[in-house]
């Protein structure tokens, strides 16, 4: 039988982007080990609505660790204590009865708070729009097998392409850098023949956009890799720097 547990939450509440925020204490008495962390917040919210209080807002959608919508600091760690796990996939069996958990939004200058735990990550979309694609339009593509790609390259590209764009890397970085996110796309595309043609320009455009959005620089802490729910490797950042330098030296 599932163990029932009492969890003491301390949640960041902030009514809007300009409003002052503060931590508020809540108790969820009927949690259980098979619940996901977001289901715990659901249960809390149902209680709040019945009590006539405003529920806690948090972004989420797929709840299976793939869309990248969710993301909060749980006990000071982006997505919580379980490695390679988005917070929607974090289950309460990672906690003990009676635990106190602080829940805060991802914090970064480039991620302004929308409300409570919801932040604006549209800077990521602008980084992709700066060059995170292969410049093709629909139609006229050659047969998919016309250009063989080594299995190693395809596999490595896939490792980077697995990024879900959640922003945990930024939240974990002492400089609030978006290097891991940006590098993942640059590396994914540079590793494939289809993407390698534009690789240098892409690196420059995306890195410049990252800076323009107010993200910090990378100083090799590798905190990003530690919290990444998809385990994206910081080696991508080396690759990004290489592409960048190649372009600058051209």
């Amino acid at each position: 039988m599932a163990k029932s547990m009492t969890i003491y939450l301390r949640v960041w509440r902030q009514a809007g982007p300009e409003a002052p925020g503060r931590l508020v204490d809540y108790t969820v008495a009927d949690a259980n080990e098979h619940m996901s962390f977001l289901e715990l917040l659901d249960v809390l919210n149902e209680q709040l609505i019945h009590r006539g209080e405003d529920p806690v807002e948090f972004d989420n959608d797929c709840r299976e660790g793939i869309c990248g919508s969710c993301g909060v600091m749980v006990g000071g760690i982006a997505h919580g204590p379980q490695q390679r796990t988005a917070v929607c996939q974090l289950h309460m069996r990672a906690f003990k009865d009676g635990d106190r958990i602080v829940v805060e939004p991802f914090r970064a200058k480039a991620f302004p708070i929308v409300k409570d735990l919801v932040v604006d990550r549209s800077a990521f979309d602008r980084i992709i729009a700066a060059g995170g694609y292969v410049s093709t339009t629909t139609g006229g593509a050659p047969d998919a097998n016309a250009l063989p790609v080594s299995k190693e390259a395809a596999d490595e590209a896939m490792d980077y392409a697995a990024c879900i764009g959640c922003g945990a890397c930024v939240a974990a970085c002492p400089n609030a850098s978006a290097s891991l996110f940006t590098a993942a796309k640059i590396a994914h595309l540079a590793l494939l023949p289809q993407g390698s043609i534009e690789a240098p320009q892409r690196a420059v455009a995306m890195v410049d956009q990252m800076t323009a959005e107010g993200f910090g620089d990378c100083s090799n802490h590798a905190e990003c890799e530690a919290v990444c729910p998809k385990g994206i490797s910081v080696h991508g950042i080396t690759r990004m720097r290489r592409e960048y330098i190649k372009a600058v030296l051209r």
Partner: protein
Amino acid sequence: MPRATQPVLNAKVPAGRLQDKWDAYKDVVGLVSPANKRKHTILVVGTGLAGGSAAATLGGLGYKVKSFCIQDSARRAHSIAAQGGINAAKNYPNDGDTIWRLFYDTIKGGDYRAREANVYRLAQVSGNIIDQAVAQGVPFAREYGGLLANRSFGGAQVARTFYARGQTGQQLLLGTYQALSHQIATGNVTMLPRREMLDLVVADGHARGIITRDLVTGQLERHVGDAVLLCTGGYGNAYYLSTNAKNSNVTAAWRCYKRGAYFANPCFTQIHPTCIPVSGSYQSKLTLMSESLRNDGRVWVPKDTGDPRPPSQIPEADRDYYLERRYPAFGNLVPRDVASRAAKKECDAGRGVGTTRLAVYLDFAQAIRRLGEQAIRERYGNLFEMYARITGENPYAVPMRIYPAVHYTMGGLWVDYELQTTVPGLFVLGEANFSDHGANRLGASALMQGLADGYFVIPYTLGAYLSGTALNGRLTTSHDAFAQAEHASNKRLRTLLSTQGDKTATEFHRELGQLLWNHVGMARTREGLESAAKAIAALRHQFWERIRVPGENGTYNKYLEFAGRIADFMELGELMARDALAREESCGGHFREEHQTADGEALRNDEDFAHASAWAYTGNDQAPVEHREPLTFENVQLSSRSYK
């Protein structure tokens, strides 16, 4: 059963041989010149595979596109969660696949309730999709020689499924999102995230705009355009528990229904056989385990009811691999509807496993012995990890427990061959339409359809509409139809907020879900459907008296969004029950217990039901009118589906 007197719908299928229809259509279809494309604004709602690919493609062609999505970014649409793969008739493995076979498998898999011409076109363009995705840099799985890898999927005897680990939907969607981002950079596409479409604006008989709510500020907005493309996915969340994302909903499609678009075959819903079972009442959604697992996993239950032994203690002789036993030709790879019903049957008979006894085993022990754990890890590693995270069990050591869950909806807004609804200028793409999967969708076909519609069909059919229609170029958002639609949306939001009853949206949603799951789920009866329709109507009235929505309108307010969607799900739920009642046969995902063979297989009635039922809205609390599109099969022989 009275003979059909229902009004008949014309699907505008081109004449000629099945194989030539699409080419013949393209040869003569009207075009919009490059200079004129710039003058047309196209509103594309949704950024999944269908909407994202349509917006990117139309932007690339030079149209002015406004793209809307409900999430904070176009990259998060629920197509992203598709795991297993995408079908294409490439015949790379040289195992005998052809366009015809993909067409035939899809028509047969859909239990002969889809339109031949659409399905053939889908199979025809399937290969182009793979070419396009590879050109975008989608990292599909490859063989050591560098060529693309394929695997097999349910309902087919060839390997035609392309995949990117267990994240095929994610990779295809990111390819689409990147193509869309490219067009955003060129200025042809304007992206409006965190918007929910609350109404369709029909002016002078044409779809000319939409009303959206900015989900951050609560502001209602009016958008005018020359055509509206609805790409908003399916309605599986009507059941509360489903594999859909939390924001997936029917609201945009339902608003279109109320503005004159017909809703077709709402009772055709797909229950996916391999999902992680429910663990408790707080459960907010269900997680699918890709059907591709059935390539190597074997489904079984103990032979004895209530066998208390853990799976490792149950010897081979005491296990029933019921799919292999009942369907020797397809074994564990029977189509989804067949596999789901078989699991239900075992559990109903008391042979289910796990604490709830609502689960069957999916066992990889034999495959691990044959191929080694490493090979299995390479094929399904991320799925196994996901299973372990959710259940706390190690599927390499103990068999997975799985149970069916609502996953996909074949029904949707009725569209003709050009993907146009009964409202001129309103097109519907992807899961939101009803067109290609009949009464059951085969695995790895949803991604194919979404991208076929967006990349390769709509660019032609939209051009045909725009070049052949005289639209009022001076129409603006100050037209009365906009004011009226905005007013209606506003009023509804105010009512939701001011009722201040005692029941939350989630509580209503759970109740609705229970009714639908029990009576409009895997097995349906006349009695059950009649009682469900009544109960849902009562619940809907209760909703407007007792709903309690927190907060206010002028801010981010998730529960206000939810409440509006649940109100629409309830109306839809009634229509689902009505449609299921009218369809006196069993086909695909629609299983009426009154209509089955002696050994419990679905019994179709081609004489009376080889048609799509398209329902027309006539007013609140008024019975909708059923229109019919007769399905004529000129190329395939209707036979009873056999996977034995």
